[in-house]
């Protein structure tokens, strides 16, 4: 070997070592830098950036807690148990078989992705939920979550959350599901194969849903019994229904209003509806881009809505929707819905029977871009003449508010305060933040309605408390009840007692 060759070898070796060092350094250091930002700082940054571009985050200099690293073969839950508020649980690539439950505040659960290697929570179709949290200030990021029977990520009354950059496939109930929450950001997630809604914002306020891709689900994105929500820059395709906003009857919170659906691609949502038969979501007609049911003050602006075979947008009241029975405490009509400028193309080419009947009545062969069925007042459409519409008799042509550009986000400028809770309210909180995710009083969401459970367990709250700790499957055509054994025995009894006392007025009798 001559001198020159030795020199080049040394140079190559040094370069390789340096590259290796830099690579190793990057892999170890990069993730903690991301992780070090607190959730509330991230939310503030999202707000500052107008939410849409929120990943360009700001550092606020808040002191972050320590980083606890979890490697393949270790349990994430052990790291969560060891974590203190402010800490980050950093999950390295590998496959994890567990349910993670976070019941403390200000924890970040952040995966580290190396090339194609994700930290993966695999439910193997055996486990119910992947990540549950009841703390405030929770961040869940960079996880791949597959094959759970229940929810991928469910928040239970956790305020100020960020759920970001997760890749979720095949869940039996919901994909990303904040329930009874205030102030939260759901962005840059991919979800597919979810048997109800991929992203389900339930009974929440001030939520921002942006830059997500949802396909191959029964419902893509659903905003239900929630207020001040923006759904923007998402891609919803090949679901049975693309983007939905509802008032579902029989839930503890009775309203949905101030929802903006803008700048989304809502394309070819023609997937077969594979929701559980008899459930509300099974009543979503396949081929529908956007559905507004009973929600008020909804603005639909600047979306591309095309190739949805049933209809581009359906605006419906409770009466006109399958599997819905009335809730006397909820207004059944969609009021003040504004359809501003959107691009519609090739919708309604294969509509359901009910819409066909409307077409016959309107003497048209063209399926609708926009169809309104049932009651509702104060609704308007900006460019009525440009659209194929049905049932818009009472709708104004032209809207008072023609743009939502003045509303960057409904996220709060300060973190929402945690809920103040008296001991006697614990049952109510758990009912609202956990049970009501699947059990409505008088209709079938995921589980049997609360009033039927009341009939089965009359005078026997302990029976519910025992059952929910370790449920067995009782109903072939319902998803299995997730175990709630992480709740203490007295909490389970408190919520069972509360559930047996929930009531709702009966709807007025119809004329015979």
């Amino acid at each position, binding site marked *: 070997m001559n001198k020159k060759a030795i020199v080049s070898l040394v140079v190559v070796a040094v370069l390789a070592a340096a590259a290796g060092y830099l690579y190793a350094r990057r892999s170890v250091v990069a993730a903690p830098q991301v992780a070090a930002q607190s959730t509330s700082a991230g939310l503030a940054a999202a707000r500052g950036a107008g939410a849409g571009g929120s990943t360009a985050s700001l550092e606020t200099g808040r002191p972050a807690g320590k980083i606890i690293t979890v490697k393949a073969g270790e349990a994430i839950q052990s790291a969560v148990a060891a974590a203190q508020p402010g800490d980050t649980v950093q999950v390295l690539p590998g496959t994890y078989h567990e349910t993670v439950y976070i019941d403390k505040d200000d924890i970040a659960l952040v995966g580290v992705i190396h090339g194609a290697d994700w930290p993966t929570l695999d439910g193997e179709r055996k486990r119910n939920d992947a990540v549950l949290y009841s703390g405030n200030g929770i961040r869940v990021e960079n996880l791949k979550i597959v094959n759970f029977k229940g929810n991928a990520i469910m928040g239970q009354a956790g305020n100020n959350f960020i759920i970001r950059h997760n890749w979720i496939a095949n869940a039996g109930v919901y994909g990303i599901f904040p329930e009874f929450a205030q102030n939260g950001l759901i962005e840059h997630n991919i979800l597919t194969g979810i048997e109800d809604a991929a992203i389900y914002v339930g009974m929440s306020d001030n939520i921002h849903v942006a830059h997500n891709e949802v396909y191959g689900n029964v419902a893509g994105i659903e905003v239900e019994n929630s207020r001040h929500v923006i759904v923007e820059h998402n891609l919803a395709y090949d679901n049975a229904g693309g983007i939905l906003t509802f008032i579902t009857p029989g839930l503890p919170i009775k309203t949905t209003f101030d929802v903006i659906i803008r700048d989304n691609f809502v394309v070819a949502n023609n997937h077969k509806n594979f929701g559980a038969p008899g459930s509300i979501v099974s009543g979503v007609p396949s081929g529908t881009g956007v559905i507004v049911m009973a929600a008020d003050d909804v603005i639909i602006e600047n979306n591309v809505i095309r190739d949805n075979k049933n209809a581009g947008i359906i605006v419906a009241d409770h009466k006109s929707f399958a599997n819905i*029975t009335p809730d006397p405490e909820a207004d059944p009509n969609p009021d003040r819905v504004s359809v501003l400028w959107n691009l519609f193309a090739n919708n309604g080419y294969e509509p359901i029977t009910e819409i066909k009947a409307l077409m016959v009545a309107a003497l048209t062969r063209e399926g609708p871009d926009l169809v309104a069925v049932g009651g509702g007042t104060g609704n308007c459409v900006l460019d009525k003449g440009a659209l194929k519409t049905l049932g818009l008799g009472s709708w104004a042509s032209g809207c008072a508010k023609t743009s939502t550009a003045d509303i960057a986000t409904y996220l709060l400028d300060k973190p929402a305060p945690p809920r103040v809770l008296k001991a006697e309210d614990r049952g109510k909180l758990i009912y609202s933040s956990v049970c009501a995710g699947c059990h409505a009083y*008088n209709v*079938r969401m995921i589980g049997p309605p609360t009033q*039927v459970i009341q009939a*089965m367990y009359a005078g026997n709250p302990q029976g519910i408390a025992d059952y929910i700790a370790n449920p067995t499957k*009782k109903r072939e*055509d319902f998803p299995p009840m997730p175990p709630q054994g992480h709740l203490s025995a007295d909490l389970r009894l408190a919520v069972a007692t509360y559930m047996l006392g929930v009531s709702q007025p009966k709807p007025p009798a119809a004329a015979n």
Partner: protein
Amino acid sequence: MRRSRLARYRLVLAIGMVACAGLFASAASPADGKSQYAACIPCHGARGEGVAATGAPNIAGSAAWYVDRQLKDFASGARGREPGDRFGATMAAAVAAVGSDKDRAAVAAYVAALPPVPAPAAGAPTDNGRNYFNAICSACHAASGRGNETLGAPRLAGVAPAYLARQLAAFESGRRGAQIGDRLGAQMRAVAAMLPDARTEQDVIAYAASLKP
């Protein structure tokens, strides 16, 4: 060796006894129930298709566990003994003729094995009927209306609407399901009260009757 031969006899005898016990303990076969079913034919029909004039529902293909439970309830007086329940009284008298638990199980197995005969349509099913059926009844009777053994809920799909209407009214009035200790009856009574009005009851029944049994 006498001892071993005796042991062998004993063994054979024991095996024989176990085998016989096994036979008796095994589920009643439909064939055993055929002769017993003759007592049911005047009201329920030879095919279990039901006879509208007698008020007897179409029971063909009903789950054996459900038929067996009802026969027991009629026999014990848990069902059909309220004053004024003339259909119940008829059933109670008929069931008295069936006799043993084993006979009842055999009849139930026979009925379960009969091919279902759907009831004549009770008018076109309505959205209201579907909505309430799915919202309330499907929790136990399944959205298909095929029932749920774990929950003790019978099939409703394709069952004669006049019979369903009478039972719903009986649960509401307490003619059925109101006896102390009747847990399933109490549940059904509470759930029947959730239907808001007479029209909805008719709609739900028409919808159930329209489902494929």
